């Protein structure tokens, strides 16, 4: 069996762009930027209007530095143009739709042409290669399959690499452990918190996972201390993978074996770091909000998309030899969105759900915890005079209505607890609605 791609010494031809001299990479980036700006200008009315308001045309982009003059795209734009308003390809050319949660009840829809899927598969192969995964590896893909991009993204990348992919999807821990042991799994893709849960269960059931070598973990924030715990307890190498549906899905960035920041596949995704308040581009190395431009997307090109993820760009050369710049691991966001079990949640979605039941917005607080490796979300809702009944069964019915309403919008189960009036903390100015107690 060939292990030609496992470090040290391995190289996969598809990873060639990872090692391009910066100058040549810049030439490719400019060509692609000009082409994608033209495409968006010609086909997406929202983008064209914003360009024209600024007196800009595609020809205004003469160098990569000119990108700073282009208008930003934000998540609200996807919501406002729901479902297909930002598409730059006719339906006949679109071969896949995915969706992720938005700020109100409606999801955000993203589209792919065949060429877009090919790019996605390519960056996923390059991601796996960077993690030292190769032909002959058995990948247990425990990301959810469905509208969420995690499952299918990793699936096609793994197959294109030539690895054996087990499309087990998320959940059912017992079956995951049986497959891991019996099928000789060597690599796993899932959220880091779910992997910790698998580890704990494996200890209880004495499951043999001695063949497992690499984990590709993403879809939620996690820290270096959590990586140490995973590696110490399992003996595997844990990699952080970055992506977002709006840009393509997983595979926007990946940690190589050095694991000192995530390489961004800059030939497809152009990164900038801005001051989230002023929108000004920050100097190299400064911490700010990551902005990404899809250089090669056809169906839904996004120009200067504000990710709301806070990080910094690292341009020092990486010991792995890749010339691709890296971003520091993402620890926080510039808005109040949080990620739970791979689902993007905005407090405003919870507000919508509470409003639907009560008619007026009660004071509330969201508490995130991690139990047995699984993220839990609790919503504390203050009892209002309108909704206080002196009968237990009516209060319990209210509790269940609130839970059902939130689950209906977010698609995940949450626990609602009723709190005494004025018992939840108030802060001056912007209320801190989310208390994240997960030890990430």
């Amino acid at each position: 069996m060939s292990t030609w791609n496992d470090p040290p010494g391995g190289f996969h031809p598809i990873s060639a762009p990872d090692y391009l001299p910066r100058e040549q990479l810049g030439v490719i980036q400019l060509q692609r930027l000009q082409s994608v700006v033209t495409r968006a200008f010609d086909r997406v009315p929202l983008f064209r209007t914003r360009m024209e308001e600024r007196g800009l045309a595609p020809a205004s982009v003469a160098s990569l530095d000119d990108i700073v003059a282009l208008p930003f795209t934000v998540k609200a734009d996807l919501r406002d143009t729901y479902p297909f308003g930002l598409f730059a390809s006719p339906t006949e050319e679109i071969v896949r739709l995915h969706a992720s949660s938005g700020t109100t009840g409606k999801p955000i829809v993203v589209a792919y042409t065949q060429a877009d899927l090919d790019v996605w598969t390519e960056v996923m192969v390059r991601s796996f290669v960077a993690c030292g995964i190769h032909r002959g590896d058995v990948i247990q893909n425990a990301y959810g399959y469905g509208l969420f991009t995690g499952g299918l993204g990793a699936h096609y990348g793994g197959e294109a690499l030539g690895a054996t992919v087990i499309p087990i999807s998320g959940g059912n821990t017992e079956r995951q452990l049986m497959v891991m042991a019996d099928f000789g799994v060597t690599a796993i893709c899932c959220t880091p918190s779910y992997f910790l849960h698998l580890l704990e269960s494996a200890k209880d059931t004495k499951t043999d996972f001695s063949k497992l070598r690499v984990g590709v973990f993403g879809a939620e924030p996690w820290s270096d201390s959590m990586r140490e715990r995973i590696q110490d307890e399992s003996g595997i190498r844990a990699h952080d993978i970055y992506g977002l549906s709006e840009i393509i899905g997983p595979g926007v960035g990946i940690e190589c074996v050095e694991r000192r920041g995530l390489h961004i596949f800059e030939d497809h995704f152009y990164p900038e770091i801005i001051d989230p308040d002023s929108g000004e581009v920050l100097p190299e190395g400064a911490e700010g909000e990551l902005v990404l431009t899809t250089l090669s997307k056809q169906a839904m090109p996004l120009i200067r998309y504000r990710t709301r993820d806070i990080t910094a760009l690292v341009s020092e050369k990486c010991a792995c030899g890749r010339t691709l710049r890296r971003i520091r691991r993402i620890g926080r966001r510039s808005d109040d969105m949080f990620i739970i079990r791979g689902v993007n949640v905005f407090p405003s979605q919870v507000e919508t759900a509470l409003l639907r039941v009560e008619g007026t917005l009660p004071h509330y607080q969201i508490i995130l915890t991690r139990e047995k490796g699984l993220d839990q979300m609790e919503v504390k809702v203050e009892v209002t005079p309108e909704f206080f009944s002196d009968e237990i069964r009516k209060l319990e019915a209210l509790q269940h209505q609130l839970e059902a309403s939130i689950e209906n919008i977010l698609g995940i189960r949450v626990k609602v607890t009723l709190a005494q009036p004025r018992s939840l903390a108030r802060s001056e100015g912007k209320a801190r609605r989310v208390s994240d107690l997960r030890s990430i």
Partner: protein
Amino acid sequence: MKLQQLSLFLENKPGVLREPCEALAAAGIDLLTMSLADTTQFGILRFIVRDPIRAKQVLEDAGMVVRMTEVVPVEVENRPGGLARALAAIEAAGLGVEYMYDFGAASRGGKAAIVFRFEDPDAALAALEAAGVKVLTGEEILPR
């Protein structure tokens, strides 16, 4: 006659029972009887005072959510089988009982007082009287 009972929502944590009691004490309000309904997550304190409107104001001023509910005080024989006989009459009248509790301060002369919360207090009053169950009046239950 019907009585106005006050109810308070209480979270399941230390101090929640003391706070309303202290607020009432500071206003010189005496609790005549009370009952605590509890679940694993929260509780409801139900109580009767002489001046429910003032007590409600005192508690609301202290930031609490108070509900006023009509309950019916019923007299039963203070001996084995006394309550059972009253309940049989209530059952025969087809009345739904939400909850009930003892009103010890209003017991006297071999008679006990029980507070009932019925689904429909007005229908209950009429049915109880028709069934010969004595409903107490304000003068009878409020201590002099």
